[in-house]
């Protein structure tokens, strides 16, 4: 019911764009609020449609996956949650998928955050993971299978000092249990005892800082999930091998869920993402068609860019 309704409205919207094009060429552009309405609906309606479009797995995601599956059971994974609620739609699904995978394959998670909101997002991800039936089959104990070290101020300096000893920056976990009396952290002194670092980064401090210090200075293996905005900036680290793999934005998250065979939110969001992009592209085209039909404004000189 909702599904069909959504489809009908969306197709009507598509058709009406032609009228918008006509008006724009006619020199009577529609006002912003109309455009806002288009964007809003284009994102809202697909959420009502239970469709997951086919998604090819990109090499960046594949690389990360191949590295993760190589981690033997019992490996210690440092999981850095460096993002806040605004970036959650992109990064939370990645985090959830990763945590679920880790628990199912008995990877030990050491969670921390360079962003104040990180550890709280981690808590949410853990709650979500525990709801998974396959994770629930065997109990996962805090302090043995995972620990949340919380947040520490100092941005990249936190990573730097962790090179001397994690305890230095995280003397206690979020339950205020002293570092030395947490079983999972027994014999974990610094990066040399960590098998893999997974970073979910939304900006500064984030993936770049982990590459600069965690990888280039302390020689750890780093995988990253970043917001789309960040992704473009960290791609060079991917081709130079400073990152083992990269999940970029919502589609990265969806691919990650697919490759890990975890049904998650990102897969359900990707359709809305498609329509959102389509709308923006349509408006760019309309705007530019009008721009050329009406002829370049006289006042506009040959810019240098």
């Amino acid at each position, binding site marked *: 019911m909702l599904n069909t309704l959504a489809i009908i409205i969306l197709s009507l919207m598509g058709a009406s764009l032609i009228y918008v094009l006509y008006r724009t060429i006619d020199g009577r552009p529609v006002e912003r609020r109309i455009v806002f309405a288009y964007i809003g609906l284009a994102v809202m309606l697909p959420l009502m449609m239970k469709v997951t479009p086919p998604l090819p797995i*990109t090499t960046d995601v594949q690389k990360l996956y191949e590295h993760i599956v190589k981690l033997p059971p019992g490996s210690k994974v440092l999981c850095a949650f460096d993002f806040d609620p605004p970036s959650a739609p992109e990064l939370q699904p990645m985090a959830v998928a990763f945590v679920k995978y880790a628990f199912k394959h008995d990877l030990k998670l050491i969670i921390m955050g360079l962003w104040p909101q990180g550890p709280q997002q981690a808590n949410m991800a853990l709650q979500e993971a525990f709801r998974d039936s396959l994770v629930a089959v065997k109990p996962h104990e805090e302090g043995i299978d995972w620990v949340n070290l919380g947040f520490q101020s100092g941005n990249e300096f936190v990573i730097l000092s962790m090179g001397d000893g994690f305890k230095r920056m995280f003397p206690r976990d979020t339950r*205020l249990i002293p570092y030395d009396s947490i079983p999972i952290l027994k014999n974990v002194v610094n990066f040399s005892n960590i098998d893999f670092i997974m970073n979910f980064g939304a900006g500064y401090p984030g993936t770049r800082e982990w590459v600069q210090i965690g990888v280039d200075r302390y020689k750890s293996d780093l995988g990253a999930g970043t917001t789309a905005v960040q992704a473009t900036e960290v791609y060079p680290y991917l081709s130079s091998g400073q990152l083992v793999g990269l999940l970029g934005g919502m589609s990265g998250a969806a691919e990650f869920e697919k490759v890990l065979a975890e049904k998650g939110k990102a897969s359900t969001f990707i359709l809305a993402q498609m329509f959102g992009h389509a709308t923006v592209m349509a408006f760019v085209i309309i705007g530019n068609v009008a721009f050329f039909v009406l002829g370049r404004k006289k006042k506009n000189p040959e810019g240098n860019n």
Partner: protein
Amino acid sequence: MRREVPVLITSIAGLVFAISYFIPHTPFGRAESIFGDWVSIVQAFAIWLGVLNLLKVSLEKIFRKSEGWPYSYLIIASLFGTLIVGFYSGFSGINATPQYTYSDTGTGFDWVYQNIYTALTSTMFSMLAFFVGSASYRAFRARNIQATLLLISGFLVMGGRVPLLDRISSIFTETPIFSNLANWIMNYPNSAGQRAILIGIALGIMSSSLRVILGIERSHVGGGN
């Protein structure tokens, strides 16, 4: 005194971190970790400075009855509201057995975070989606070669990174042409451009850091050179 001391502090701090990169041996390795601790603590106080400053500014606004002053009451109220909930959650957690932290799931502070903070921040930024839309309709023009190139590659990435253009191409072929293309653009031309920028930035940061450490650059201590 007001100039020299800060400049000296800057140089010392800078040198410690620069040198300890090459010389791990004590005292540098050790000094580095101690300074690292300090940075962490100082930044925490800096945040508090910011908060107190906000309080100060809002109060001034109210006393001066300057434009939009009634909202300042609201700012102060919500600030204190959050602080009270936070401190309550925190200290009751510290005194409880077993201890829990201010941000654990189920605490009042976490409730504020989940329902108020999250809603506000996420929505604030999600508005940008609308603005991108209207800007793409009214402002983003292929006004010259560069802008045209930008828009084209933007299009390929936008349409290729989600199965949008592939939907169209799938009529003719099974292989996800556009997804591969977008992926290629990201991995090669994009990486190339980013690398050029990165290298530029690296040198830029290096020279500015150098000026700061050598004490030639003093704008941060509130003085020309």
